């Protein structure tokens, strides 16, 4: 079921990644099931889905940050020739922060409250580039300046609570980018920020990625973020990728009913007053959703007979991958 790619050198090549949470006496919960994707240098990839769709677990699995106990990880995560899932922990620690870094959702809790910003930034530089003293301080100041933090020298001595939410997220991005990693994974980096700050942070990420040539994996539930930032998009539902396409294709012609539902549910400012919102009915179920057919079937407006009999496979056609028996039909296309 994994897509056979030509042996091109992708920066990140995830093949058939699966993550199951195991508990004694209970059935395993498959949070991620056979997810494959690739990311190239300079590219921005979006991973979209609602809460519980497995997007954050996917990123944690790539980073090797899932707990060892009670978790079973399968598949392959190739980064620059190494399979990250089989690397010894010490080598993985060297890669984290130096080659791959991550920005988390909540800038309030992701910074250590009792340690000054400067020490938290220099810690990374010390760890990976062996910088100390003045050299580390200079590099840390540069990192903060690069993410647009004003008066970075003074900020180095400040504690996280003395910074605003947006500044804290900038500081976290500075820490993640301090060693100029080749891949940045951003897990809903703007969710905890207010709207104007969100736009600034996204703009900043876009700029930094463009300037450094790094790849960016953007994890979000916000299609607006995807529309403004990503080259390719993978839509996840119930731990599997249900549709992958380039940004334009996906927004212009969503084929999977779930993607269509997501797009239709975005509130529009230009809609007539009083026009109803369009939610996707129901809520995701999390117990082995794919074992007896399509996990989205119970909520799907396009449901047909086979949907509840066997899970559809991910099929690739016309530069897009789709997991659906009865996809939405593009407006000008004649139904077959």
């Amino acid at each position, binding site marked *: 079921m994994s897509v056979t790619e030509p042996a091109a050198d992708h920066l990140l090549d995830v093949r058939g990644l699966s993550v199951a949470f195991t508990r004694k006496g209970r059935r395993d919960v498959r949070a991620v099931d056979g997810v494959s994707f690739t990311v190239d240098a300079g590219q921005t990839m979006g991973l979209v889905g609602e809460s519980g769709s497995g997007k954050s677990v996917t990123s944690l699995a790539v980073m090797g940050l899932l707990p060892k106990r009670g978790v079973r990880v399968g598949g392959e995560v190739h980064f620059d020739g190494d399979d990250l899932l089989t690397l010894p922990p010490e080598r993985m620690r060297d890669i984290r922060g130096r080659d791959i870094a991550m920005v*988390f959702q909540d800038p309030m809790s992701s910074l250590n409250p009792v340690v000054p910003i400067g020490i938290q930034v220099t810690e990374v530089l010390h760890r990976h580039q062996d910088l100390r003293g003045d050299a580390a301080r200079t590099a840390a100041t540069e990192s903060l300046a690069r993410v647009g933090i004003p008066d970075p020298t003074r900020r180095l001595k400040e504690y996280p609570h003395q910074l605003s939410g947006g500044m804290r997220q900038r500081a*976290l991005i500075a820490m993640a980018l301090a060693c100029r990693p080749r891949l940045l994974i951003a897990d809903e980096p703007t969710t905890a920020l207010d709207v104007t700050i969100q736009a600034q942070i996204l703009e900043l990420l876009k700029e930094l990625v463009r300037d450094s040539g790094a790849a960016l994996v953007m994890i979000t539930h916000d299609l607006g973020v995807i529309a403004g930032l990503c080259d390719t998009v993978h839509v996840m539902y119930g731990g599997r990728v249900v549709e992958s396409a380039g940004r334009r294709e996906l927004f212009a012609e969503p084929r999977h009913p779930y993607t269509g539902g997501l797009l239709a549910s975005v509130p529009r400012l230009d809609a007539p007053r009083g026009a109803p919102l369009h939610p996707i009915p129901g809520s995701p179920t999390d117990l082995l959703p794919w074992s007896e057919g399509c996990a989205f079937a119970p909520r799907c407006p396009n449901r047909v007979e086979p949907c509840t009999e066997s899970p559809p496979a991910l099929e690739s056609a016309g530069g897009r991958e789709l997991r659906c028996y009865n996809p939405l039909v593009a407006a000008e296309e004649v139904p077959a």
Partner: protein
Amino acid sequence: MSLAQVEATTEAAKVGEEGGSLRRDAWRRLRRDPVALVGFGIIALFVLVAIFAPWIAPYDPADRPGAGIVTPTNIPGPSAEFWFGLDELGRDEFSRVVFGARTSLLVGVVALLLGMAGGLLLGILAGAFGGKVDTVIMRVVDVMLSIPGLLMAIAIAALLGRSLLSVMIAIAVINIPIFARLLRGQMLAQRGSDYVLAATSLGVRRRSIVLGHVLPNSMSPVIVQATLTLATAIIEAAGLSFLGLGSPDPRVPEWGLMLANTQRYLASAPHLAFFPGVAIVIAALGFTLLGERLREALDPKYRR
């Protein structure tokens, strides 16, 4: 020191998220809190008296300025010359109480430091490694906690022989499990926090995460516990001396020993019991008041 107290301190410890700001905030509120200031004042007085004892006390604690006055039936109480009266051997009670502050402070601080060092070491090991290390350490701690504190202290002091050092060690030992448990619980809670995940995602080594991130965020309740432990350590030290497990040297002024020696004269010379007794209560009260208020100041639930 009771389990309930430990639990209460753990409650106070839900500070994690905002440590830095919280500590500064706590300090600001403490400075405006009259009860905390009273506690702080008592502690300051106690420490100053202990440090400057030779200058404050009019006599050497071993001197017997009233040797000719005192008889077994006539032990004079407070007077203009002898503020707290004379003891059964004609020594100046005021001077002995003043010098007693030295002994109490020394025993209290050394016992606390030893106990805290041992407890923090075990707590860090258990909290940092988890798994089997954690299980073994915590079972040992449970066993230690299940033995009543004073009983264990008596056993240890008796085992080590009569001396101030054995009193210190005994009190330290009964405080080890309390600090170990407290710190371990704090560290476990902090280990699952976002900033630990964020630091891990940047490749920071585990040692740096434990010592540089988790530990500083786990210390607030330990500071509170240390303050409260000083109060109980002073009382326990007096208790052990009272039971005859303290210094065998009668010239060393120790409040608990002074209390023990006056038992026979309780009816004729109640001042001999009154002054050392009040000194013990006030010293312990100072640390308790400050500790309780510190706990409230560090606890977000008490925020006003």
